[in-house]
């Protein structure tokens, strides 16, 4: 059986050159527009890797848009057996520096996966605990925490996130570290009516609050300092609750 001319998808890669060459099939037909990537032997592994990454990317990406969309992410999640609402997916997005919630571009995918030093699903799955540890280092956590909020700003010029989502996000991101504090904070956020949405400054305030203020006495809280007003109100509410 004559070997079939293998179709290769066109890729644009900045460190490759493309040369048109004849297919070495015995029938000897030149199938014109096929591009073959000719790379020097030393970059062979790299090519392979990028190749693999691309393949992986392609398997989840939307054909028409060329990026992984929410459906694709869900598929990816089920493949690695992690809930798509799991915080580790968020961490993954952070590692990818994904700009848009629910979407991964090829560049993001490539640089992120490379940074994780993984190129397959199984490796990705195995690398998750490592990722978690990395995120939880003091240096990174603040950045991750801030990222988590900004990730939710899906609309153009959106500056705030609604209370419901904020509560979920708080739980997701801070729940493991500061469960009891987060529970109380969420309780308050749900019943208060001063704010219908939270901005980044307030969001960052929550983290600072959980880190610095002693619970449940709140002794070292000083309302004369520049804490966001919503936290002043939270503290008042806590004190009232206690008495």
């Amino acid at each position, binding site marked *: 059986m004559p070997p079939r001319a293998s179709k290769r998808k066109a890729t644009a890669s900045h460190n490759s050159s493309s040369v048109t060459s004849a297919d070495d099939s015995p029938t000897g037909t030149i199938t014109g527009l096929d591009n073959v990537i000719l790379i020097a032997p030393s970059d062979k592994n790299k090519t392979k890797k990028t190749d693999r990454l691309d393949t992986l990317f392609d398997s989840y990406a939307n054909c028409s848009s060329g990026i992984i969309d929410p459906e694709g992410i869900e598929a990816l999640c089920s493949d690695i057996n992690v809930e798509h609402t799991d915080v580790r997916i968020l961490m993954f997005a952070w590692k990818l520096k994904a700009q848009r919630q629910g979407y991964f571009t090829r560049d993001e995918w490539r640089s992120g996966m490379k940074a994780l030093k993984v190129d397959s699903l199984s490796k990705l799955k195995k690398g998750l605990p490592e990722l978690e540890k990395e995120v939880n280092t003091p240096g990174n956590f603040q950045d991750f925490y801030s990222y988590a909020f900004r990730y939710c700003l899906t609309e153009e010029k959106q500056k*705030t996130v609604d209370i419901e989502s904020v509560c979920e996000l708080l739980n997701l991101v801070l729940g493991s570290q500061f469960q009891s504090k987060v529970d109380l904070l969420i309780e308050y956020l749900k019943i208060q009516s001063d704010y219908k949405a939270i*901005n980044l*400054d307030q969001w*960052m*305030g929550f983290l600072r609050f959980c880190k610095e203020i002693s619970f449940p006495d709140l002794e070292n809280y000083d309302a*004369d300092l*520049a804490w*966001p*007003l919503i936290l002043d109100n939270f503290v008042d509410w806590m004190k009232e609750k206690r008495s």
Partner: protein
Amino acid sequence: MGERKTFELEQGWEYMQKGITKLKGILDGSLEQFNSEEYMMLYTTIYNMCTQKPPNDYSQQLYDKYREAFQVLPSIREKHNEFMLRELVKRWANHKIMVRWLSRFFHYLDRYFIARRSLPPLNEVGLTCFRDLVYQKVNSKAKDAVLDVIGKERDGEQIDRALLKNVLDIFVEIGMSQMDLYEDDFEAHMLQGTGAYYSAEECLKRERERVSHYLHSSSETKLVEKVQHELLVVHVNQLLEKEHSGVHSLLRDDKLDDLSRMFRLYHKVTRGLEPVSNVFKQHITAEGTALVQQAEDAASSQAANGGVQEQVLIRKIIELHDKYMTYVTDCFQNHTLFHKAMKEAFEIFCNKTVAGSSSAEQLATFCDTILRKGGSDKLNDEAIEETLEKVVKLLAYISDKDLFAEFYRKKLARRLLFDRSANDEHERSILSKLKQQCGGQFTSKMEGMVTDLQLAKEYQSSFDEYLGNNPSTRPGIDLQVSVLTTGYWPSYKSSDINLPAEMARGVEVFKEFYDNKNKHRKLTWIYSLGSCHINAKFDQKPIELIVTTYQACLLMLFNTSDKLSYPEIMTQSNLSNDDLPRLLHSLSCGKYKILSKEPNTKTVTQNDSFEFNHKFNDRMRRIKVPLPLVDERKKVVEDVYKDRRYAIDAAIVRIMKSRKVLGYQQLVMECVEQLSRMFKPDIKAIKKRIEDLISQEYLEREKENPNMFRYLA
């Protein structure tokens, strides 16, 4: 003259002794008396015994016997305190009587024997006897008893001042017109005792009184000095705060002289004035707060009785201010501490709300009353000016000055538009006073309003001229239009009422006229502020009704229909449920029933229908049908709070722009200071504005220090 018997000493003395015994008996209460015969005999006996030839000249012996005659019972020594004093006084009194009588009996001795021998006279002898026999022994006890009694009086007990006086007289008299005994034995101890007992200004007076009542006058100066020393140096605070004395009572009883004196005293002591000024401040605060409470009580009882709240409080506060300012200038010599105390006191109670109305609103209403026609008929121009001055001074103590400005502006608008202002000069005068106190920005809009109205008058004249020159344009009604500059005046709601044809025509004509003159300006018609004179032909006689434009529009509907239902009226007039009930009520359920309502209930509902009331009549030919005002308070407060948000924003941005980086607390402090001229910003409000500005990316929080902010250009 018969031959004189020669009296032997014993004989004669025996006779004398009887007399003396009788005398003592009398002193002890017996009812016997000496008659002149007995007296003569006693006297003659002595005389004889002294004029007998030696060796029967018994002068010396008699002198000695005289002395012996004074035996004072020792019972005094056994008694104590007041009882002792009484006994002492009694004995002394008795003694004096005895001395007097015996001296009379023995008078002859006084005449010759004593002089010849340079001996102390009988009187003196008598007193000396008392002194030696009694006084020396009991004076210290007496002194203690007296001081004790004085102490009781200082503590507020009633004492027998007469008794004390008598006792002290003893001290004086025994000294025999030399004050030594009094001074040494009594006064010195008393002064010491006074020092130990601290006293206040009130007590100072009492001590003075005491002096006049029973102490010897020479004690006064020394006493006062001693007390003052205690006042000044030792017990300042206790003095001032003592319940029934001290600064507080002086203030309460309006004792200006005493206050002046107190000021002078304490002025010499370092920081001595501080406690005094504190009491001053507390006192004023208490009085002011009481006034506020009174007003609150009066308002709630009036409300219960359906009365209208009167403007008494402001007047009373002004009076209070005048009163205590006098104190500061007269008693306290204009000292800064007292100015400050007064200011702080007024700031405390001048910012309280009474019956839902803030002090800012009250003050504005007060001004309105004065400036309105008929508001201050009883006062002449000068008095009005004075009152306006005082009002402006009071404004300095009110923290919500912007609220005052807004209420004032709203009421000014009504005065100007409805031609209710009494006197243009006064209007301008108070504005210039406000400008001086609060700055140009405060009054710029109001000044604009006053000017607008003058311009409006000019416009009106040229409009009239225009109509005169163009008869075809005449709308058939007299029309007066006031053109107002939007920025200066409060914002008014303008609804789209359907004007009756005549009015609509008038509006058109004016619009044409105005557009010709001002091509680039747009007119927005506010019919809600207009008023109208409308002739109503009732059965009995025609009456001119003065109503608002809206009321007039509704009435005109009845030119074409006899009876209209509420919904019909609503459609035809194009007014909403917000305005219509109120308007119809004023025409059908108020004092003057121009329209009859069916059913004839007291409130207007959507099921009612209305008819023109032909039968209406009034003795006057022209009546004003009032339309009750909508309570603007809520809106004013809302508007002011909104403006405050902008003001706070502007202040924050201004500060951050110049400082670039600033700590939170510093920022808040500077903000409050900048805004304090107009209002006292709420710290939470400032915090919220900062957060909003962060959201809008005017500011950001410093990464390293979350309490620090940076200006983002």
